[in-house]
């Protein structure tokens, strides 16, 4: 697919525009409708993938004005890409939506307030690991001082600033020591390593889910892989790309390519990632920097080495765990693992390898939970309704715990448990499969030494 030369009448203004050929792949058969959580929720075709593609085409061929209404239909998309799984024509919907959002961002089509908040948080905070850490300590203080529970009990925030209350409900528990990239090198395989991997630790995970990183390094070391976590790495830029801020996303991508694959060095056997949203985006670095003369080739090489932890673990083969975990677990397919990367079996293979663990499947485990990056905050009403449906599916399985593969999903599902698990039967925190595997290894070792 080539990018048509911009003609002066076109509504698109950048090279990131949706590709006309890719738009042409949609034959409006409608197979995507029932797979789409927002069509399901809103019940209108403007809230469906087919409808949004028709709107993109309408803009593309000049039939449509880019009104705030049209923009709203684009904004309501979760970008879960369930439609791509359903699409027999393999329309790269996620890519088209990102391209459309890139144009919207470049053309300043957001409300002013949203633009300002974006600049402050997404450009001023997320790209800087130190600032993120500071924010993390702030959150820790807020939580350990008892202020958070006071705020929640009083219900004051809900009345004064409902938006902030929503964010508060979705904030992670910062009760574990934050992950430091230097920790990775301290764990090494017992024998000569059979492979070498570099771990992407990301912006949020070291603060919100540091134990997932610890478990990842342990599990791979046990399976003969030396893991390091390059210290110069930054946020992967997935949230930026999903929002349309491709320039920020490209800056971050270049910084990561330099951090993981410095010029003249050998590529690691795998660039390992345990967050589905990030993994999906890292695999797209080649596309993201396709027009960057200096980085295009390096980006493609980098992307070719990116592996989700489940994917790679199953690919290289892993030692079967021996420790019993008597638990009923349901697995939520993170959209960016299942729909975007096509990885569905590997996480289940990891889970079912654990003795005592029972995998209780939902009716629709690959339906989005409504987290979708910052969607849960900016489109909170739809997000909460999508979550409500997800939780009824979850609770129907009778599971003790939710296992999933992405920090956003974990935060959202934890908020879901807090809100919907009335009998408080479930473990209030969802978990990554790699942590369960690590725990099972550890329990197995303990049983042996006893």
């Amino acid at each position, binding site marked *: 697919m080539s990018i048509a030369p911009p003609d002066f009448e076109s509504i698109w203004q950048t090279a990131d525009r949706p590709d006309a050929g890719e738009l*042409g*792949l*949609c*034959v*409006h*058969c*409608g*197979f*995507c*409708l*029932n*797979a789409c959580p927002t069509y399901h929720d809103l*019940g*209108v*075709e*403007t809230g*469906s993938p*087919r*409808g949004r593609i*028709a*709107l993109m085409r*309408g803009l593309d061929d000049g*039939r*449509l*004005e880019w*009104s705030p*209404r*049209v923009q709203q*239909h684009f904004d309501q998309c979760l970008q879960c890409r369930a439609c791509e799984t*359903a*699409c*027999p*024509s*393999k*329309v790269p919907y996620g890519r088209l939506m990102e391209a459309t959002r890139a144009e919207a961002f470049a053309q300043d089509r957001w409300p002013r307030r949203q633009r300002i908040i974006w600049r402050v948080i997404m450009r001023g905070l997320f790209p800087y690991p130190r600032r993120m850490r500071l924010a993390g300590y702030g959150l820790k203080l807020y939580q350990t001082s008892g202020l958070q529970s006071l705020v929640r009990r009083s219900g004051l925030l809900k009345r004064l600033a409902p938006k902030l209350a929503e964010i508060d409900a979705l904030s992670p528990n910062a009760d574990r020591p934050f992950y430091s990239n230097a920790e990775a090198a301290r764990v090494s395989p017992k024998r000569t390593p059979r492979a070498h991997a570099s771990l992407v630790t990301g912006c949020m995970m070291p603060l919100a889910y540091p134990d997932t990183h610890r478990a990842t390094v342990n599990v791979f070391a046990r399976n003969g892989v030396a893991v390091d976590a390059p210290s110069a790495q930054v946020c992967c830029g997935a949230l930026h790309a999903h929002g349309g801020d491709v320039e920020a996303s490209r800056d971050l991508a270049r910084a990561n390519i330099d951090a993981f694959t410095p010029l003249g060095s050998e590529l690691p056997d795998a660039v390992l990632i345990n967050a589905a949203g990030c993994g999906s985006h890292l695999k797209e670095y080649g596309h993201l920097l396709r027009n960057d003369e200096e980085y295009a080739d390096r980006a493609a090489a980098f992307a070719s080495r990116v592996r989700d932890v489940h994917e790679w673990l199953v690919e290289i083969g892993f030692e079967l765990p021996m420790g019993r975990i008597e638990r009923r677990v349901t697995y939520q397919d993170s959209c960016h693992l299942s729909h975007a990367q096509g990885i569905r079996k590997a996480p289940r293979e990891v889970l079912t390898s654990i003795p005592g663990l029972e995998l209780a499947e939902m*009716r629709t485990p690959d339906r989005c939970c409504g987290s979708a990056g910052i969607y849960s905050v900016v489109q909170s009403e739809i997000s909460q309704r999508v979550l409500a449906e997800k939780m009824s599916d979850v609770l129907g399985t009778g599971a003790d715990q939710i296992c999933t593969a992405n920090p956003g999903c974990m935060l959202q599902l934890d908020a879901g448990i807090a809100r919907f698990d009335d009998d408080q039967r479930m473990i209030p925190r969802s978990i990554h499969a790699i942590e369960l595997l690590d725990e099972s290894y550890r329990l197995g070792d303990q049983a042996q030494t006893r």
Partner: protein
Amino acid sequence: MKTPTALVLELIEAIGEDAVVWHDEDLLVYEYDGTIDRGNPDVIALPADTDDVSALIRIANKHGASVTPRGAGTGLSGGALAAKGGVIIGMNRMRRILSVDAENKTALVQPGVVNLDLGLEAERHGLAYAPDPSSQRACTIGGNIAENAGGPHTLAWGTTTNHVLAVELVTADGEVQWIGHDTRDEPGYDLVGCVVGSEGTVGIVTQALVRLVPRPSAVRTMLAVYDSVRDASNAVSAVVASGIVPAALEMIDKMTIAAVEPVLNTGFPLDAEAVLLVEVDGPESQVEAEGARVESILRRFEPREVRSATDHEEREHLWAGRKGAIGALGQIMPNYYLLDGVVPRTKLPDVLDAVYEIAERYRLPVANMFHAGDGNLHPCLLFDEREPGATARVLDAGGEIMRVCVDAGGAITGEHGVGLEKRDYLPWIFSEADMDAMKSLRAAFGPTENFNPCKIFPAGHGCGEAGHQHHAQQQIAKFGPKAFV
């Protein structure tokens, strides 16, 4: 800023603001269905229950606006398009499965229930809903009833009309009535049979009592690969002639394989001229015996290979290749024109030859994937509507293919309905008197003239320019019954 019309305001008052779609940019996404025709509605109304439907119809009548029912908009004959503008009543929000009676093998559903969702719910009770159109992941039971939808597995089980016991119908004057009975043999005329397949021209179904069937205890799915289409179609004829009724008997040709295989990896060989997908089901012993007989028949026509799916996953995979075929054609060209002719099964080889010949003459790629077992052809002409004159060429070629089907003793639709798309071909199979009789039947349901106008019957006031079909109309006006011969 557009201001809402009196009609829109009244609809909003009746069912609420978030259930009425009327802004221009929003209406744009309701102008199509799954095929090439277009229609521009003035407003979409999305009822939540039967009373809403009744109220909406009365309001539309008051304003003299036409009413077009719509489900998921996956139809393939323009049935859900607002040919004369007016109100589209979108049934997709009425999507609850109200009850399943496993003992009596029935389910009571709202029309917006997606076919596959009903199938999955039935499966939880050890049952199945038999009609399985290829669009079953998205299409709704209401739309299935309107079009009398078929599917690969209707060869053995029959189309939708065999699976609907009773319906709640809101008629064109807004009256609500139940038609049918929870047993199959209600005395008197088969009125349910009149509603099923009426293409939304006699009313809107707001509830349906459907029949569920037991799930077969065993299934065998075979893939037979042929180096010529003629061998494959001869094999089809031979299977049918043997007296065995397979659960499904599908043919997929080379062009279709070229579209499907790269994206779905179904395992259809890219260099084969045609593959057959044959399924037998029932009790274990029967499947074993029939499977063996079918296989030996398939082998008589020099297949390159005959193999069986070894597990559920492989079976699903093969079917994904068949059911995703139409959409996958987007890989080859941006538009397709999907035809739906039926021919006597013995004529299949000759008619297929003619289809390929016509497509070649019009310089159009053609893909064939179809229900070979019941002679239901789906030639799919591929084109790019942005190329000047392409659409007209496609419609001409389509007309010729339809004509070939009719001349072979067949008909112009097997399961997609006549709709907007093929209404001008109706006189090829029915006389004026026939069509008048059908119109009287329609009128018996009430003042239906504004109800899904311009569908099924040719011409009609104000329908001249509706859809793409005026080209075909001109041809027919010019050449009369000899058009496309």
